[in-house]
């Protein structure tokens, strides 16, 4: 199947998270400036038959502002680290957005009617002098231009000493977890003044610290199960039924390291930057610096599949350490049927792997190759020897153009790819 370009949307700031909602009709992005922009899918339109699949801006709001912690003399960044949608229960949409310290529940609702004919205030909103009111009238609802409002419904603050890296909504739709470098907390969506600490890996003496939590996620179906990944390349699966504090894992996933590939940077590149359950709940996928691994939850000693994202970078690790690229945290995602996975790379490349056919493809999110409904051309990196035409040599890769965040529509073959401050939407070719 070929992938073709649908649209590119420009945001003012670097996009830091991308997430489709459960139906795929809404796509939320968070950026470094603390803003959330929600895009809505165009409905089927007979006069514009190809418009379906396009996403247009639906709502924009400032979710987080920069704050200053006076006690520690630290500035708290407003950058949105993660957005997670709640399942839709009524006409309004709810999402959780988080920066390093504070999680907020936002309600996004549509308003297409306005009340007119108030008694106590006039049409401009100015209060009327009550003594001048001689008659009462019933306000009437009049249609108005659609307005989408976002309002913060809950603010979950002051529960994290370290930087929040993950949030995950539970399948019970009542609770969610938030994870920072050393702790994971469990919240109830209705309760903001209290959270339960369920994982704490902070050592008694911080100088003994060897490992941090890098990502956490609830199981899609079992509301008592969650996983968290670590900077050592391990994943722990925990069952909240077994004890209140889940410091003891139920399962421990780790692949023995290959001693022949050891280097100064082995530790860094084994650090897991993202963990995602498959939709089925049978598998989970982890992303480390050079590869994506698929794990069967029933097999702890090694992944069932490993996909090399950009193995040609292995010989460049020292330079990548120097320019900090080795610390880049790439995310990964499943398609709706769990048959394919996608992750980003450098030079605005992103990679897709078909788990059944074992085929993989490298595509580029760039303005040059993005004309409406143009088919994307597969890209190839030349890893050695003579460079063929259309191949790109490793040394020509632009390491400032990195695709860290990608999202796949939950049901259809529509993908969203964030390239710095551009959001690209691609769709599978439909015959």
């Amino acid at each position, binding site marked *: 199947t070929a992938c073709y370009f649908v649209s590119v949307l420009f945001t003012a700031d670097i996009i830091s998270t991308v997430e489709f909602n459960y139906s795929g009709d809404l796509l939320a992005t968070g950026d470094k400036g603390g803003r959330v922009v929600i895009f809505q899918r165009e409905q089927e339109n007979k006069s514009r038959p190809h418009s379906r699949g396009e996403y247009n801006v639906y709502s924009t709001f400032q979710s987080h502002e920069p704050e200053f912690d006076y006690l520690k003399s*630290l500035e708290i960044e407003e950058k949105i680290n993660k957005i997670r949608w709640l399942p839709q229960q009524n006409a309004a949409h709810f999402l959780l957005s988080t920066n390093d310290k504070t999680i907020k529940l936002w309600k996004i609702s549509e308003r297409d009617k306005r009340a007119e004919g108030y008694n106590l205030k006039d049409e401009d909103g100015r209060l009327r002098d009550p003594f001048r009111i001689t008659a009462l009238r019933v306000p009437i609802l009049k249609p108005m231009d659609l307005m989408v409002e976002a309002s913060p419904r809950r603010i979950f603050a002051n529960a994290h000493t370290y930087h929040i890296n993950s949030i995950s909504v539970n399948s019970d739709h009542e609770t969610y977890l938030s994870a920072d470098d050393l702790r994971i907390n469990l919240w109830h969506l209705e309760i903001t003044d209290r959270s339960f600490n369920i994982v704490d890996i902070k050592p008694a003496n911080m*100088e003994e610290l060897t490992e*941090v939590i890098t990502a956490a996620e609830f199981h899609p179906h079992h509301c008592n199960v969650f996983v968290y990944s670590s900077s050592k390349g391990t994943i722990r699966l925990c069952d909240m039924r077994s004890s209140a504090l889940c*410091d*003891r894992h139920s399962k421990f996933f780790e692949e023995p390291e290959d001693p022949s590939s050891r280097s100064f940077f082995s530790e860094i590149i084994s650090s897991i930057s993202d963990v995602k359950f498959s939709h089925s709940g049978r598998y989970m996928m982890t992303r480390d610096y050079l590869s994506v691994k698929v794990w069967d939850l029933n097999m702890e000693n090694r992944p069932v599949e490993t996909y090399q994202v950009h193995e040609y970078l292995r*010989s460049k690790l020292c330079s990548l350490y120097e320019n900090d690229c080795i*610390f880049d945290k790439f995310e990964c995602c499943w398609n709706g049927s769990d048959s394919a996975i996608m992750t980003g790379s450098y030079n605005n490349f992103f990679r897709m792997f078909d788990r059944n056919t074992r085929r993989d493809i490298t595509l580029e999110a760039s303005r040059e190759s993005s004309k409406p409904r143009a088919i994307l051309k597969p890209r190839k990196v030349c890893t050695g020897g003579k460079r063929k035409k259309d191949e790109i040599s490793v040394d020509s890769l632009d390491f400032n153009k990195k695709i860290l965040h990608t999202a796949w529509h939950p049901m259809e073959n529509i993908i969203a790819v964030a390239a710095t401050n551009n959001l690209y939407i691609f769709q599978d070719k439909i015959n």
Partner: protein
Amino acid sequence: MEFKLEAHRIVSISLGKIYSARGQRGGLKLHKNLLVSLVLRSARQVYLSEPCCPPEPPAAPRALPEEPPPPCAAAAAWAPGEPPPPPDEAPRGGPRRPGADCESARARRCCCCGCCCCEAGGGGAAPPLPCCSRKRGAGERGQAGSPVKKPRREAEEPPPPPPGEQEDMETGNVANLISIFGSSFSGLLGKDPPGRRRAPRDGGEAAAAAPAEAAAEPGQICCDEPVLRTLNPWSTAIVAF
């Protein structure tokens, strides 16, 4: 020698990152700085265990016959981005101490890569390097409890250097930096004052370091003056941090 330079370069880069992390918006990034400190530790271990550059005092390992050390070339495979040294460099006298170098390099092949247990191959050339077992062995798996339980044998810094030796001061500074940076984690919480020196914690480590200092080669860092000097501003900066 390339290993030493590479290790030194990585130490410098790492210190630079730690230093510039101070003013970072949003506060200290614990994850990144932990990784940097692990790299720093590995590089420092390599740096300390590498044979010295000329001139160097004679020592027992030199008695080993000089021969091209292909295992050293193989050991170079791990060095990031470095091509293996051409075999004809090997018989060169002083710097490489080929025989001992091979032995220690072979042993070091595991160690410099940061962890895993290794047997010191050389008779006395390389002190038994402390092993940091980052990955769990089979015996440690299962309900190991807190994942931050570090094996006791993981390296801390060597004992304070003898005063009046500038090269050892260099080691001391690097060790000081690790110690300071380590306490900066707790400094983050305001528990411990930054700059607190830790006494060596592990008797095994002290024992390993002692023969190093006795042999006087691994502990010494023979570097160019400018290189030595560049490390000093870092230490003052980190102390402030």
